[in-house]
């Protein structure tokens, strides 16, 4: 078994970065984002990137880091509402955006990783996002064709991973990561915990190691929360 673990994030991306490349990055908002790997891309200075990610991060975090440095030429995303810098670059024409419905984006990536060149979906029929796409009728219903999506590099964030690259995600930090792991010509996983091979339990693995080229354990958490909502404890409410 080849040991896919690398000691540092820089090593995990060594030789994989080039100008004009496409990069998928997992995450929903800033939940489940491979933030340390993204920081390495920022520091590498590669430019003219196409990023594929549900959101484009927030100001100063996640893919927002690559916007600050002007490294992103195009984004393929479903929603970019939480990023002022993105809005600014988009409105001034510095960055191109291709909006995908969120489920279509997820399925395009799943399809790309599974070797499926295209599929049909009801999503988007009759909307501006159907323009230029083939439409077909199945069982009397209208569908549009969407294509599978792959990238030069996929960056994913997992909770635990082993030296073979088997991955386990945690709670809603899973989101786009499993599909993206399958759809990169190279896939690098950022782990909260690198564990000994054989300890994850074969039944518990979410992403089998075949999809993963390198893993790296990243320290320096805690994780950020985008929108903290809480409620008072019942006893507090009772005393109030």
């Amino acid at each position, binding site marked *: 078994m080849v040991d896919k673990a690398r000691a540092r994030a820089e090593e995990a991306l060594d030789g994989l970065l080039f100008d004009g490349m496409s990069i998928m990055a997992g995450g929903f908002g800033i*939940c489940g984002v491979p933030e340390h790997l993204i920081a390495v891309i920022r520091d590498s200075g590669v430019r003219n990137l196409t990023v594929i990610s549900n959101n484009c991060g927030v100001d100063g975090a996640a893919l927002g880091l690559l916007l600050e440095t002007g490294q992103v030429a195009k984004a393929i995303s479903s929603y970019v509402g939480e990023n002022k810098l993105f809005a600014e670059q988009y409105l001034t024409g510095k960055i191109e955006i291709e909006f995908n419905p969120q489920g279509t984006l997820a399925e395009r990536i799943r399809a790309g990783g599974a070797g499926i060149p295209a599929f049909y979906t009801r*999503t988007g029929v009759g*909307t501006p996002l159907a323009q230029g796409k083939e439409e077909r009728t199945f069982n009397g219903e209208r569908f549009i064709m969407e294509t599978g999506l792959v990238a030069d590099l996929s960056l994913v964030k997992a909770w635990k991973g082993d030296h073979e690259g088997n991955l386990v995600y945690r709670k809603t930090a899973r989101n786009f990561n499993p599909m993206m792991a399958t759809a990169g010509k190279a896939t690098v996983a950022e782990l909260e915990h690198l564990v000994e091979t054989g300890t994850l339990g074969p039944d518990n693995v979410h992403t089998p190691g075949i999809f993963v080229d390198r893993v790296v354990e990243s320290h320096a958490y805690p994780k950020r929360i985008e929108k903290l909502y809480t409620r008072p404890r019942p006893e507090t409410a009772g005393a109030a």
Partner: protein
Amino acid sequence: MAWTREDMAMRAAKELKDGFYVNLGIGIPTMVANYIPEGVNLILQSENGMLGTGPFPYEGEADPDVINAGKQTVTELPETSYCSSAESFGMIRGGHINMAILGAMQVAANGDLANWMVPGKMVKGPGGAMDLVAGVRRVVVVMEHCEKTGASKLVTECSLPLTGANVVDMVITELGVFDLARGTHAPVLLELAPGVTVEEITAKTQFAFTVALT
């Protein structure tokens, strides 16, 4: 006296049936969760990959890895399960979700829905809205009846770019409830908020409708 936002959420909650899997949008739809009728057990889906979304956490117990589709911190319930975004939208696109309750900018007589972009303004993207309206079995819109300018949001034809064509089953506003049936028949006014007359709602509604008050 027209319905308040709470009243509208309460009215929408009456559409929920025992055993439903439901996706709630942001805004008034989120408030629907506060008015689930007694005896109705349902499971809330968050399209970011959480089925069985619980209430906000107690102070100090928020988990950054447990968020809903509005990116708010939430909690697990005993029945909660997690999945990938692809599987989550498989639930949606595959027709496994019984009902979606969401907001809108415009709804047309034929069930067309517009809620994701205004030409000339910054477009934030469709998020999961197009998938939800295309895939969920029953789509209920809860929204203000008119824009701040006074223009009706219940229109003969959407002037804004569509989120989905022929997708809306029901519209609830502060003035009343319309059955749209995804455009399979002309809109029907089913209910009026207290103190609202047919004349008033007609004056504030661009599309033509029949009246069958229940």
